[in-house]
Structures are given as C-alpha cells and as structure tokens.
C-alpha cells in the first residue's frame, strides 16, 4: 500500500501556517519606524537611558532615573556646564558656622498634585529620605530640622559640615510630596509622571503649573536599557529619539549617519590607578620615586586612542580640566627611560633596562574589574609596559572591586570614581583620601594631606574651599599618591529633529529631560 505523504505534509504545513499567523498577529503594534515626534499635533519624545529605576520611591531609588526624568528637583542644583551650585527649590541659604543652616524655600512652587511646596513639606521629604536610605543619612549628616515659617527651614548638622550644600544635590534628596498616597513620585519638575513602571517605561507629561516656565514637549516616553548595542539599535529603529551613552564602537558610525547627531563631552569621573600603601609591597609604594616610575610607565594618549576610541581626555590629577579647582598639570614624561630614572632614584637596581630589588625581579599584582570594560584593558597596558622594564604584573579580575580591595591583596587597582562632582571636592576627597574613607582602598594616611583635608572640611567660605581643593589636588599630583590617567567622555546620540538636549558630565547629578528639550 503506497504511503500517503501528501496528508502528512499538509498537516505540517497547516501547523507552520498557524505559527506564522500567530507571529504576524503579534506584530500588529505601531512600529512604523519613526519616533512619535509631532506627527499627531502632540510633541512626544522617546528617550532611552542606561540604568532603570528599581523603585518608584525617589528617595530610595538606586539610580538617578527619577532625577534625570525632569519630574523632580532638589533644594540645590548643579549647573551641567559650569558645575557650579545654584539655588533651585531653595531660593537662598545662609549659615554662620556651617552647622546651623537657614534655607529659604522658593515661594510659588507647587507639587504636581497642586499642593504648595512649604518648609514643612521639605522637612517631611528630607526626613523620609533619611528614614529609608542610610546613604542620605551619611551624605547629609542632619541632626535636626525646624520649620520657622511656611518658607523657612532651619537645619542643624551633626558637626561643622560645609559640604551639606553640595550633598543636597544628591539624587536621593529630591523634594517630593511624601504625604501623597499614590505610588508615583510627586515632584515639582517641568514634567510629571503619567505612569511609571520601573520595570518598563515612564510616561512623562508636561507640568502646566511649572514654576520656571513651560516645557516645550507635551510628553516623554522614558525607558532604560543597560545594553549599549540595544540602545543604538533603538535609535536606528526609530524607537528612540535620544539615547544616552551609545556603545563606544558605534559612535563613529552613528556620527556618519545622516539625521543623527552624536554629542561627546568630558565626563566628571577619572580612570586611575590606586596604589596600596599597606600591602605586601608597602615599602615600594610609600616611596614617591617608585610611584612616579610606575606613573611614567603609563602612556595616557595610548589609552585614549587604543582603549577608548578617542572618547576621553588626559588626566594628571584628580581634577583635570578647566574647573576653578583644577590644578595646572605638571610635566609627566612617560616611557621606559623616564620610568627607569625614577626607579633608580627609588633605590632599586637598574641594569640593562631591567629593574630588580635585592637581585630579584619585582612581582606585583594589579586588580581590575569589568563593570567598566576599559579598565581591564588599561591593566593589560600597564602589565605590558612594566614587562619592558622587567617588572612582572599579575592581573586579577574582581567581580566587585569595592568588595575585593578591602582584603588588601593587591599592589595596584584600576579604579573609576567621580572626582569633579557637585561643585565641591568633599565627596571625592573624603571618600578617597579621608582616614577610613570607603574608597581609600590603599589606606593612604599622609599627614600633610590629612591635615589639609581637615582644614578643608571645616572651611565655610566657598571661594576658600575652591582654592583649598585645588591645593589638595596639586599635592596629590606632586606626590603621585595615585596615578590619574584619563577622563572618559560622556556621550549621547539623538535625531536631528531633537533640540535643546544637553549631554551631562555624569548621570547622577542632572536632569536629562528638561523644559528646553524639544522635537520638530
């Protein structure tokens, strides 16, 4: 009896057709390829940033997604172009001793639910932030708050604390109406949340009652995707009008595409090498000439060209750039010859271009991590340079660098930290060089530096603080306490129909969706 293949094949064909039909039916959404723009008379912009919010609580959220959304504001703002502090929801403030502060809350500002922003509401907001977030407690060091009148709030800090003002820029200190029973953050920004699913998207609508003028856009769809290639594809597919941080490898090709603009600005973090002053080779690292020798092994321009696709600027101290507290960089000759001179001055044996100590080659451990993909490559460059002068460097890749380094099992660590931040050096200098500072992994305790830091921490006058921060930066560079290498650029890409976008120097301290943002 002949086989009945046609029936069998027909069955399979039916299944296949059903499958294709199902997929086609699913693709019925609006994917015309063009972002919303102004086609329907309403100006809508789609923005894809990097890190999603993990909660709708603006005081607890682990990323700056909510601040970036332009829905909330802090008492003190930071100008993204000058990095200077400016009065935001606080119209002004004064203090005689940097411990007892009086804040004058801006009049005529309403929350998105229509309630006025009063000193009482600000106090409740800050109190809530401190209740749910131990980081805010550490940042603000507030001992007491007292409402004087509707628009005057007195704050007393635990001790003399001039850094309070700059810490009020922190994205977890935004002022929201914490008495509102809803789930959405009720802020004061130019946009308000229409809906907000931290796991999905935030729909922002223009706040028609905004105190500082009307936003140009009617609506913003804001999402986050941690995969940089996916963000680039979203822009190319028309699913996004603006993306923050396109992948490094895509920046050049995006820049060559018509209809897309790529913006690249110096960031406010510095990639650097931290030296270990208390580890196995503490004797070496406590020798300034040795540190300078290791610094001379690093060719900064090679890092920018070879590792960062040109998206970086040179750094020689923790405050590179042209900021008021930036030191004038010293001369840093690099190369094996310069390095060998320093190693010889450090008392090491140099023979035939190789360095030894007590007749033995040096073996050092460099620790790096992959959260910032350029850092392991910088570690490799250092290992290769060190090998040229006979120094062996073992590379260790840590999953979480801040957990690995306290074990004290390293000589050098590649590290990335915000240094040029919040208009004030207090955050960086205390964390990275203060006694017991959580980012002082090398446990440096230089008496001169600590003394300068103590003076800085009690200096009230802003101008004097700027000058002191600059002097501390100069000392750090002169002594080569760490080796500051490059400032990675911050980048964004957007369609030419977008105007008013400003790429900030970091994602932590600025709104990205602003009232000036527009789409044609």
């Amino acid at each position, binding site marked *: *009896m002949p*086989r009945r*293949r046609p*029936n*069998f094949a027909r069955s*399979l064909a039916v*299944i*296949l057709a059903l*499958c294709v039909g199902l997929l086609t039916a*699913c*693709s*019925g*959404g*609006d*994917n015309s390829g063009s972002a919303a723009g102004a086609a329907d008379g309403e100006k809508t912009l789609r923005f894809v940033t990097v890190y999603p919010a*993990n*909660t709708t*609580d603006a005081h*607890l959220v*682990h990323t700056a997604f909510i601040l970036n959304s332009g829905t909330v504001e802090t008492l003190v703002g930071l100008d993204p172009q000058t990095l200077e502090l400016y009065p935001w929801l606080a119209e002004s403030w004064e203090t005689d001793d940097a411990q007892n502060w009086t804040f004058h809350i801006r009049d005529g500002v309403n929350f998105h639910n229509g309630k006025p922003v009063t000193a009482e509401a600000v106090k409740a907001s800050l109190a809530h932030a401190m209740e*749910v*977030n*131990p*980081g805010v407690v*550490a*940042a603000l060091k507030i001992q007491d708050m007292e409402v004087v009148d509707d628009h005057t709030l007195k704050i007393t800090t635990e001790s003399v604390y001039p850094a309070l003002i700059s810490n009020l820029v*922190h*994205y*977890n200190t935004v002022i929201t109406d914490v008495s509102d029973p809803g789930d959405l953050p009720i802020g004061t920004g130019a946009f308000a949340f229409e809906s907000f699913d*931290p*796991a*999905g*998207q935030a729909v922002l609508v223009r706040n028609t009652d905004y105190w500082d003028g009307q936003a140009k856009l009617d609506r913003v769809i804001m*999402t986050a*995707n*941690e*995969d940089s*290639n*996916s963000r680039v*594809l*979203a822009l*190319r*597919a*028309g*699913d996004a009008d603006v993306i923050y941080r396109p992948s490094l490898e895509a920046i050049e090709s995006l820049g060559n595409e018509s209809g897309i603009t790529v913006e690249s600005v110096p960031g406010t973090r510095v990639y650097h090498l931290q030296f270990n002053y208390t580890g196995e080779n503490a004797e070496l690292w406590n020798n300034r000439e040795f540190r300078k020798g290791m610094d001379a092994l690093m060719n900064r321009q090679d890092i920018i060209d070879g590792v960062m696709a040109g998206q970086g600027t040179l750094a020689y101290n923790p405050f590179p750039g042209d900021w008021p507290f930036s030191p004038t960089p010293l001369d840093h000759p690099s190369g094996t010859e310069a390095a060998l001179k320093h190693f010889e001055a450090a008392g090491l044996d140099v023979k035939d271009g190789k360095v030894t100590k007590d007749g033995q080659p040096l073996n050092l451990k460099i620790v790096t991590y992959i959260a910032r993909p350029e850092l392991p490559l910088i570690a490799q460059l250092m290992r290769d340079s060190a090998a040229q002068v006979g120094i062996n460097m073992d590379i260790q890749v840590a999953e*979480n660098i*801040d*957990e*690995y380094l306290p074990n004290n099992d390293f000589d050098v660590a590649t590290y990335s*930290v*915000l240094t040029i931040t919040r208009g004030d050096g*207090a*955050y960086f200098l205390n*964390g990275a060089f*203060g006694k*017991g*500072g*959580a*980012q002082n992994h090398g446990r440096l305790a230089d008496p001169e530096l600590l003394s300068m830091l103590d003076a800085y921490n009690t200096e009230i006058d802003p101008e004097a603080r700027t000058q002191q921060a600059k002097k501390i930066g100069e000392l750090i560079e002169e002594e080569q306490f760490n080796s500051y290498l490059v400032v990675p650029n911050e980048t964004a890409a957007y369609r030419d129909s977008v105007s008013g976008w400003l790429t900030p120097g970091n994602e*932590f301290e600025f709104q990205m969706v602003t009232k000036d943002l527009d789409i044609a």
Partner: protein
Amino acid sequence: MIRWLLQGLGFFFVLTIIGFLIVQLAPGDAVLSMLKVDTVAVTDAEIEALRENLGLNDPALQQYGRFLGGVLRGDFGNSLMTGKPVMTELAKAFPYTLMLAGATMVLAVVITFVLGGLAARFQGSLIDKAVGVFCTAGAALPTFWFGLLLIDMFAVRLHLLPSSGMATPAGLVLPTVALAVAIAPPYIKILRNSLIEASGREFVRAARARGVSEPVIFFKHTLRDSLIPLVTILGVSLGSLLGGAVIVEVTFGIPGVGKLAVEALARRDYGVIQAFVIIVGMAIFVINMLVDLSYRLLDPSISLKGAERV
C-alpha cells in the same frame, strides 16, 4: 502522592539551606550599595555600623533561624534596595518571564514538531540535511548575537517589531524567536531520531500491514512512542526558562526574574536571591512531578509497572 509530598518538603528545606548558604558564602553584602558608596563619602565605621544594625554580624545559625521562620510564614522580608516586600518584587517580574517562557515553549514545540517531523519523514533527503544545518546553527549562535540580528532585521531595517520592551504583545515576538531557535535544536534531533526509531518498530509495521492510515499511525503510534524523551527534556528546559533567560531579558529590555536576579546579585540584595532560589527551585520540582505524571499518560505500561510494584 504522599511520597511526592514528602519529597517536596525535603526539597524545600534543602532549598532554604542552599538559599541561606549562598548569602553566607557569597562575597560582600548589600551595605555598600545601601550606603551608595559610589556617590556618598562614607567611612569604614559607617559601613560597619549599618552591618551591625542589619544583623549581618549575628551568628549564622541565628540568621538562618530568622530566615527560615520568615520563609515558613511566606515572608521573605523586604528588598534592601527597594524597601518593598521581596515577594512583591518577584510577583512583578514573574508575569514577564512566564509570558516569555510560555511563548518560547509553544514556539519551540511547534518548530520541533514541524522540523523534527519533516526530518524524520524525509530521512536522508535534502530536507533532513537542511534541518540538520538549522539545528547546528541554532545551537551554535550565541543568543544575544542572534537577538541583535533579529532586532537589526525586524526593528531597524523592516520596522515591523519593536527593538525592546514588552509594552505591546509585539514586543514578545523577537525575544521568543531568539530563545526558541536557541533551545529547539536538541528537541528536533531527539524527536527526529525517536520518530525514525519508532517507525521501524513492530507495532508500527503491524498497523501499516493492517491498512491503518499514515496520519493515524503517526499521531497514535509513532508520535506517542517518541514523546517520552522529548517531554523529559522539555520539562528541564521549562525549568531553566522559568529561572529567567537572563541574556535575552537584558538584550530585549524585558524586566523578568532573570534580570531581577542578576541585578539583585550585583546589588547584593540577597533576600531577592533567596526567594528566587526557593520559588524557582520549587517550580522546577513541580514541573518534574508533572513530567513524571505525563509519562503515565504517554505510556500506560509505566503506571502498570508502578502498580505491579505496589
């Protein structure tokens, strides 16, 4: 049934121990994340004080007792990162993963039956070879790369589907295809080989000799006989899909449990990890039970053998 319940109970306690040990043995804790050390200048003293305050310095047995007591009450505590109950966080993420896993399994099964069936039916032909190439390519392609290719083709070039997110059902299509193509190859091979093997068995030849039609032979005899190994591997895959297809979830911006678990690991939000281990572990246990049950439906001789042992 009682045997299964006892097994389930034992497995549950093993999972609580594993969940607890993961936290004890893993490096670090949530304190650095909670204090926002990347944006706040904190000292070692402040770090240690918070650790003490959270009870992270308590003896391990005391911590396990606290943890087990909570789990037995169905309370996994609050996420240290969001302040919300861990179960709320997981409940938000699971629907996305369930949708993705369900759609993936359906599509993978369809692909398997179509391609596995064709390859078996036309054994040694060009079709069989083409299916073989598909299987090799599907198994060899890195999922994230295939996912990006799909986005490039269907979102960037053709503008047919969204590049990421699941705001509309259309968002489910590309991640489902990416995952289904990745997991289907072994099913196809297994089904193909099982079908070929079954088609040569005596009872199939006998049915054919009795003049039974080919579709009836295929669906009633050959296919049924070939399903047991397939169902086994499908059960295993479903379990791992429920655990979250992390790479696909990240590539397509899907906020499922896999992405949640990875983020929780990065932030050392161990309450979420513990709940994830226990819930997904129990889900896999139940799926395996169901797979066992399905054997009895697919092959009645299995239940008969079980009855004989009793």
